[in-house]
């Protein structure tokens, strides 16, 4: 009778759990004692706890105690507590923030654009496993950014040996079927009478290396090439990922023997086999074409002219795969400057959000809201799951939900409803370039002037006459609503209006109100401009 026996066992479980809990977790009195300490000492006590104890301490805190724990702490102390509670989150948040910070503020924009391009090209998914967030920091900082404008082969080798990529595309766990490690495994399994483990070749990296990183899908390589490539890269692994180790070539996992692939023969050479193949791939004309086309799609149009791609590919091969040379060739090509490709690209969500913040000259205390916005727009940072990376094609980014999000972001940003981000719109409320002149907000002439000023500030080129007309009509209807509201306020307001009207030159009695409504008008104008079709393109 399994029933009663099980019931007994499960009845026994809570006792065991309680006993275990008591051993690890601070009791009520201990929690109260810690909470009663001054902020600095609370931090010290928390720092002295083991990770397990911090975990149970957190769990045992009841509602208001959570607030008490960080009460009166400095922002720095609060951050220490937050980091202790969830170190991975701290790493992820900072990774995303530094990225947005550079995208918005960096004076070296091409460097950032190319870092973004290669991070997407060599996509690694943030949540692949527990170690990935930590390895991604180094992947971006040490692998991608320093090589973003250098030789492609250097970049390719660095990514191939990066723990982030080795884990993401599973090469770290790939094992040669006839390797020493596999043979040992088989012996052990036989001794213990266990079923023989699978040979352990993982083709994931080998396939994506060719299809996504270098040659593209259409270069005519076969499944046999993929399998042979996987054999070449056996043994390329990570030294103790749980301890943050680096690249390791594990000879014992490496498949012995020569390999035949892509029309050539690689002789038995351990680590060098992989390096040889990366060199061969980096220098193939197919790679030159594939990368040139992708760059042209990024910079020029969704369907770039073949003549441009050819010129870039030639430059790639002539320069030994020098990324800067290829870009220079592109920038100097007549196709790059043709009218048809002017503003032919729709901004990706990242480009949209960053360009909106840059154009607004916004002050930022926190970048998390921007990162959340990208989640909403379907382009969460570092979180593209498939190894393809995000699409550079316009169509994918323009759809119903996307436009709703973009328009609302524009309105929220300009009206300062995005927490931690501050924008200033009227010229006279900012650096005072137009002095402190107070303008009647219902004056159409001023609204038109404001629109032009904001247009110059925000847009790369003029908006259409229709867009401008609509913007002004919008401002007009808003000020009518305001006038209507003012009338309803009562006799005193009317009296003031009358005084203003008769005296003519006299300023409104409440300049701050006028300024506020002008600010509101300008914020709305700015929001409509940033949400307009014109601003969606680059």
């Amino acid at each position, binding site marked *: 009778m*399994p029933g009663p026996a099980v019931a007994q066992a499960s009845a026994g479980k809570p006792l065991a759990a309680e006993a275990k809990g008591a051993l690890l977790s601070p009791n009520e009195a201990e929690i109260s004692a810690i909470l009663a300490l001054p902020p600095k000492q609370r931090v010290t006590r928390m720092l002295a706890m083991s990770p397990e104890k911090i975990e149970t301490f957190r769990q045992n805190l009841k509602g208001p105690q959570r607030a008490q724990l960080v009460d009166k702490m400095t922002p720095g102390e609060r951050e220490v507590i937050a980091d202790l509670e969830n170190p991975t989150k701290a790493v992820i948040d900072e990774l995303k923030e530094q990225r947005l910070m550079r995208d918005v503020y960096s004076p070296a924009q091409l460097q950032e654009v190319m870092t973004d391009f290669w991070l997407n090209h060599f996509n690694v998914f943030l949540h692949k496993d527990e170690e990935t967030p930590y390895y991604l920091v180094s992947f971006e900082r040490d692998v991608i950014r320093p090589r973003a404008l250098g030789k492609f082969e250097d970049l390719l080798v660095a990514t191939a040996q990066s723990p982030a990529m080795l884990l993401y595309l599973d090469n770290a766990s790939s094992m040669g079927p006839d390797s020493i490690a596999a043979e040992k495994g088989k012996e052990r399994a036989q001794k213990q009478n266990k079923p023989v483990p699978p040979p352990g070749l993982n083709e994931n990296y080998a396939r994506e290396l060719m299809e996504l990183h270098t040659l593209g899908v259409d270069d005519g390589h076969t499944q046999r090439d993929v399998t042979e490539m996987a054999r070449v890269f056996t043994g390329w692994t990570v030294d103790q990922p749980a301890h943050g180790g680096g690249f390791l070539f594990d000879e014992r996992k490496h498949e012995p023997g020569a390999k035949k692939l892509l029309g050539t023969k690689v002789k038995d050479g351990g680590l060098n086999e992989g390096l040889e193949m990366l060199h061969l791939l980096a220098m193939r004309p197919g790679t030159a074409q594939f990368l040139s086309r992708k760059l042209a799609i990024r910079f020029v149009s969704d369907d770039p002219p073949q003549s441009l791609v050819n010129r870039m590919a030639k430059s790639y091969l002539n320069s030994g795969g020098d990324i800067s040379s290829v870009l220079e060739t592109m920038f100097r090509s007549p196709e790059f400057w043709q009218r048809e490709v002017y503003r032919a690209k729709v901004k990706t969500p990242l480009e949209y959000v960053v360009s909106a913040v840059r154009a607004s000259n916004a002050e930022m205390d926190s970048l998390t809201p921007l990162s959340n916005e990208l989640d909403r727009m379907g382009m969460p940072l570092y979180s593209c*799951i498939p190894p393809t990376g995000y699409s550079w094609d316009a169509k994918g980014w*323009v759809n119903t*939900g996307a436009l709703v999000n973009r328009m609302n972001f524009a309105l929220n940003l300009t009206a300062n409803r995005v927490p931690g981000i501050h924008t200033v719109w009227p010229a006279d409320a900012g650096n005072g370039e137009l002095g402190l002149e107070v303008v009647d907000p219902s004056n159409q002439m001023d609204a038109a002037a404001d629109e032009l000023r904001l247009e110059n500030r925000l847009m790369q080129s003029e908006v259409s006459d229709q*867009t401008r007309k*609509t*913007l002004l009509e919008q401002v007009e209807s808003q000020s009518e609503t305001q006038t209507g509201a003012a009338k309803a306020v009562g006799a005193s307001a009317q009296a003031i209006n009358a005084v203003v009207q008769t005296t003519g030159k006299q300023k409104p009695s409440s300049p701050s109100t006028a300024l506020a409504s002008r600010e509101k008008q300008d914020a709305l104008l700015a929001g409509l401009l940033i949400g307009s*079709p014109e601003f969606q393109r680059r």
Partner: protein
Amino acid sequence: MNLTRRIFLRSSALAMVGCAAVPAFLTRALFAESVNAKAQGKRLVVIFQRGAADGLNIVVPFKEKNYYAMRPSIAIPQDQVLDLDGFFGLHPALAAFEPLYRQGHLAIVPAAGSPDNTRSHFDAQDYMESGTPGNKGTVDGWLNRTLQAEDMRGANQHALEHTAFRAIALGSQLPRTLAGKIEATAIGNVQDFNVGGRGDVSAPAEVAFQSIYDASSDALLHTAGESTFEAVKMLRATTPAKYTPAAGAVYPTTPFGSGMKQIAQLMKANLGVETAFTDIGGWDTHHNQGSVNGDLANRLKDFSEGISAFWRDMGDDAEKITLVTMSEFGRTAEQNGTGGTDHGHANVMFVLGGEVKGGKVFGKWPGLAREQLNESRDLAVTTDFRQVLAEAVSGTLGATNLEFIFPGIQLRKESFLGLI
């Protein structure tokens, strides 16, 4: 600009939903034309249990001796399960499922899963959502390909008439399942799907944006703008803030419950929803998952009550709905050292629907004896998850081109389990 049939249809339908005095049947009649004839207004709901749910404690094989031997402290006692057929029983927290099963609407496939042996959440979810186990290069999701296949079946004029709500995902991000060529809309919260603020009428900013996009000569953005404002208006006309579920439909006050409620709300509003997706997390029970009560039980209560409230809420329309649930893999047959279970292999799938031949447990049961287990540790897969999905899509959305939807596997109707 041409006044196409599509534009006419859409704008007239829109004009009607915008006008409260028009009887509902008229709006419905207009929309009836815009759904695929073959599908006849049938709808598919897909629910992903992220984190690998413990199938063996969800649909309990209480007659398996080894079940109790392998799970001394977390097994569900035989006298506590909701007996289905003398061999399997539902976890008691799934009480809300019992009537659906008894009424013959709920079918259960207890040893379903992927042929790929990966135990990585990431890879397994990726494979299940793309519908191509073992192949990471697949860019689109199986549900998006299902809709692509529908359009390819010569129903081109219908393809143009779909609304922005044809494929919806409740949540801030579009799931991989719905990624692809067919436009799908992710909605975090129905009430926030607006431009410039909530309310019964268009916000001034919405009016301004609409006229800017209307006048834009940028074809791509002009068209996108058109469908956007249409969708916003359609949704507003359903007064989402005032939604009241049908009598007796009590949704759990959880993110999942709220998601299911919003799916019902969107479907009942005749917005042209053909398929909806949502997910529910918290299944990765490595520690203290509990037995009759505990973490897993709480999840199951939320899960089953959300689904049964949805079913009740849909009323007569539920007849045309098929709902299918999945999770990336199951968990170890044996409990681990911390009162939980680790990553395993096969898992249970539920299929609920008006045309589902439910009230039955489907597929071959592989057994829990050591030699019957996958790699001596997990429940073996006897039904490929794509088989279940293929049956759901062909029975609901009329899909025939199964090689396109699930490339790399020969799925034939003759080998279907007979779920629908």
